């Protein structure tokens, strides 16, 4: 199986993550061919999940299709990269019915378009107008600071590192002052 996939899709290698889990990264235009091949020839009949991972530094989303054989002993992660701008990849709904809800999820969370999926309506976020929330550029803390307020009465929080430094400096100064005072006192006594 590995040799066939390697020859046909010109991928560099197939990772064996565990004895029951393989992973392959292919070009975007070949991914559906590979999924169909796995399904038809190697009995990977179930689509378990479609996941997405945002690699913002490399400017792409990694879309992973996880397929499982009908005896459920082997899983195959088929991964491809799509650009972050105008992200889109064809829908799998025509082959796997359950892809509809998974794509709907990703559409909402990442703003990825799936041409061919008829039902890309909102899933769990209602009237969401901001950046799709699971994109890395969406900052939850900033969103919270802009839209919600913290509990009142939380003042009095100290920056402990600064406080330690200040206290240490204070102690040092006190010590130095004490020393100085002592020296002065001894000087005075010497003078006498």
């Amino acid at each position: 199986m590995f040799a066939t996939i390697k020859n046909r899709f010109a991928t560099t290698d197939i990772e064996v993550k565990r004895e029951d889990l393989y992973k392959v990264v292919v070009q975007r235009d070949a991914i559906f061919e590979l999924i169909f091949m796995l399904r038809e020839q190697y009995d990977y009949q179930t689509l378990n999940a479609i996941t997405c991972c945002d690699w913002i530094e490399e400017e792409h989303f990694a879309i992973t299709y996880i397929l499982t054989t009908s005896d459920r002993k082997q899983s195959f992660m088929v991964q491809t990269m799509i650009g972050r701008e105008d992200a889109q990849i064809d829908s799998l709904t025509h082959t796997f019915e359950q892809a509809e809800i998974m794509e709907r999820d990703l559409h909402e969370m990442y703003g990825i378009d799936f041409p061919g999926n008829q039902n890309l309506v909102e899933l769990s976020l209602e009237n969401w107008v901001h950046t799709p929330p699971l994109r890395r550029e969406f900052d939850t803390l900033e969103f919270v600071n802009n839209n919600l307020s913290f509990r009142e009465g939380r003042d009095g929080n100290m920056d402990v590192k600064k406080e330690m430094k200040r206290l240490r400096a204070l102690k040092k100064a006190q010590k130095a002052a004490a020393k100085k005072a002592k020296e002065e006192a001894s000087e005075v006594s010497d003078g006498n």
Partner: protein
Amino acid sequence: MKWSIDISGTLSPLGILAAMMQKPNTIAYPAVKKETAVGYRGFHTNLLVDCIGCANCQDVCMNDAIDMIKTDKEYNVKNSSQCIPRIDYGRCCWCSLCTDVCPPDSLKLDEEYLGVTQYASDFLYMPKDK
């Protein structure tokens, strides 16, 4: 839509009636109280003679529930920042990571867990000194 005559299925659930004679599982709450297991994750306690004010608890808390504040109570002489933790129970999830990272083991979770208040400000909880 269908139902059929099912003698054993009709007679076997009669066992429910036996429960009438058995001891109930519930307890009459305010009169009888359930004993909490040792090691239950309830309210925080902080032994001030041990607390060194290191703020490890504040650092590990993912909910930002812990504030380090100045105290007017007597504290450990080794407390290098002279601060002790105060916990916002509106944010705390009782994961007990703060007690795991406490170097002198002064911050602990107590078996006590019942707190009733009508003021939201009471959620800012000063751990008991014990």
